[in-house]
């Protein structure tokens, strides 16, 4: 098992290298000249050229890439063109709200979606099933920001149960922290809940036809045990896959959600950096999320071996 995980980590290295190359190429592919942006509107061509040399933008592509990669491997993501602060420090400052939002969304989604999918499969064809699936289609077709504004209007403005927007650090206590995250997590998770509920239902429907489910019933096991232990564990592989893929959805959705709920996270930082053409910051964030995604995929693969002993490692 340990050797499997090590091998998998090693195999992600080439992927990360290619990702790094792409991220670095952003600077060349994207329109606009960073040196000109930094220099400002009043700068003379000589000023721009000086800044270009200062940043090393005049050197050959591969040399620039090598230097950049070398720094990253030493934990140096560069310096923001706009604020002059180290990129790693800027990311560190914004990482907690975003990761909190993603974690809560993920937990909430799984806790809601999987039982819904199991219930729909168990009662397939009944009104329970039809209601859950109708909800899934509905949730699937609404964009994040619409759900976000509706939730904020109903639960924050009308009922005043939860704050409208903002973020409280975890250090201030779990409840204040959670309070600010429930609505954004629901908004961000609604599409995701619909998706996972549908996959869970489909996967469970197939498993419930299997002979071993009949065996479990013949043994006198209770319905809950049959559904959540005997069947769900067999149905888990596609569900885990979709949960993994969904984390990519979350990254994109987090940017929008943070804007709707005024959460000072990485999403806001990304938008600001893009608007300012602050390339080092953009690169740092994209690299971080790519790394996160590769890590999630690794976790998904390891989870497969935990739920299904037939999958070899």
């Amino acid at each position, binding site marked *: 098992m340990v050797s499997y995980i090590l091998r998998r980590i090693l195999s992600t290295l080439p992927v990360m290298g290619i990702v790094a190359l792409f991220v670095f190429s952003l600077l060349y592919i994207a329109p606009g000249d960073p040196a000109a942006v930094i220099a400002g509107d009043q700068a003379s061509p000589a000023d721009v050229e000086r800044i270009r040399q200062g940043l090393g933008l005049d050197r050959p592509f591969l040399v620039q890439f090598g230097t950049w990669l070398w720094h990253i491997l030493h934990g140096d993501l560069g310096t923001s063109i706009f604020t002059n602060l180290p990129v790693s420090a800027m990311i560190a400052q914004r990482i907690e709200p975003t990761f909190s939002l993603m974690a809560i969304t993920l937990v909430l989604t799984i806790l809601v979606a999987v039982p819904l999918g199991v219930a729909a499969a168990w009662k397939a064809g009944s009104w329970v099933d039809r209601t859950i699936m109708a909800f899934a289609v509905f949730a699937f077709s609404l964009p994040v920001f619409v759900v976000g504004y509706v939730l904020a209007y109903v639960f924050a403005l009308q009922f005043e149960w939860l704050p409208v927007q903002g973020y409280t650090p975890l250090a201030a206590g779990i409840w204040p922290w959670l309070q600010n995250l429930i609505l954004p997590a629901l908004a961000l998770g609604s599409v995701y809940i619909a998706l996972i509920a549908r996959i869970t239902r489909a996967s469970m429907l197939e498993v419930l036809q299997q002979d071993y489910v009949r065996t479990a019933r013949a043994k*006198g096991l209770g319905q809950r045990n049959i559904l959540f232990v005997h069947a769900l564990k067999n149905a888990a592989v596609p569900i885990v896959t979709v949960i993994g893929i969904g984390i990519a959805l979350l990254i994109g959705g987090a940017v929008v959600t943070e804007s709707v709920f005024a959460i000072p996270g990485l999403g806001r930082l990304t938008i600001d950096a893009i608007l300012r053409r602050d390339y080092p910051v953009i690169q740092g964030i994209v690299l971080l999320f790519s790394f996160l995604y590769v890590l999630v995929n690794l976790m998904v693969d390891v989870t497969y071996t935990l739920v299904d002993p037939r999958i070899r490692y």
Partner: protein
Amino acid sequence: MALLEVDNLQTHFRTPEGINRAVDGVSFHVDEGETLAIVGESGCGKSVTSMSLMRLIAEPPGRIAGSIRFQGKELLQLSEREMRAIRGNDISMIFQEPMTSLNPVLTVGRQIGETLRMHQGLDKQGAEARAIEMLTLVGIPEPVRRVREYPHQLSGGMRQRVMIAMALACNPKLLIADEPTTALDVTIQAQILQLMLGLKRRVGAAIVLITHDLGVVAEIAERVMVMYAGRKVEEAPVTELFRSPRHPYTQGLLGAVPKLGSSLTGAARRLAEIPGQVPSLKGRIEGCVFAGRCSLATDLCRQVAPGLEEKGPRHIAACHYARKEAAAA
């Protein structure tokens, strides 16, 4: 008193094309410690009968009517919770497909142990110890290692042994075995049958054996019930049935079994076969269910369903002409 008394069992399924009468008015009993075989072609209602005994038929679309009394208790009137306490504990079941009847993602020990934990209130260690004991009993080598293994690590014969261990773990009064050896190699079949018989004597369980394999019937059954198109057509002690089958369908079944050396006696004869197919069970069948395929059938057979009549000692059959036929043979 009989251990199991089934009276006028009717298991019908609602389908878009009408009601499917998979089991239509079957009555039989099983005494304590007895082995009853239920035989018949595919689709004659054997498996549905066995599933009905455990109330494992999905309702709807299925519907079970009649009476199933187990140790004097009417199973059809029990709540689902009371029924669960009986399944796997007093009545347990072995299925045809050992390759797919075990859960692939749970260890063998867990699957044997969970019935014990649930019905006998054993703790985790106790259940595992008993699971190892059961694996030893069904002849699985290295039970201490095997108990932690998954079904895919075992061969088909081993898996059927695990199924048997699982079914017998709680010392049931009645074991229902639905084609337990059909999916196995011939060499393994005999071993599994011997194992079932040995363990049955040990725990004193009665067996209802569902099969279409008359060789298996001859080997282990004491009494045989022949089913056709959802009805019982004949029932007799095993030697009596093989010696003088009364119902034309039973005679046909026995005639379709190849006999060793028959082709050496000169003319290589074609095996006798029963022409035609099992009739559709959608819609009520008038007259004898076998009339459409029976060479002796007359207008009487096509109009009036024969009742089950005493044709010999403890021997009953549902045929208007059975006695005459037996005398002629």
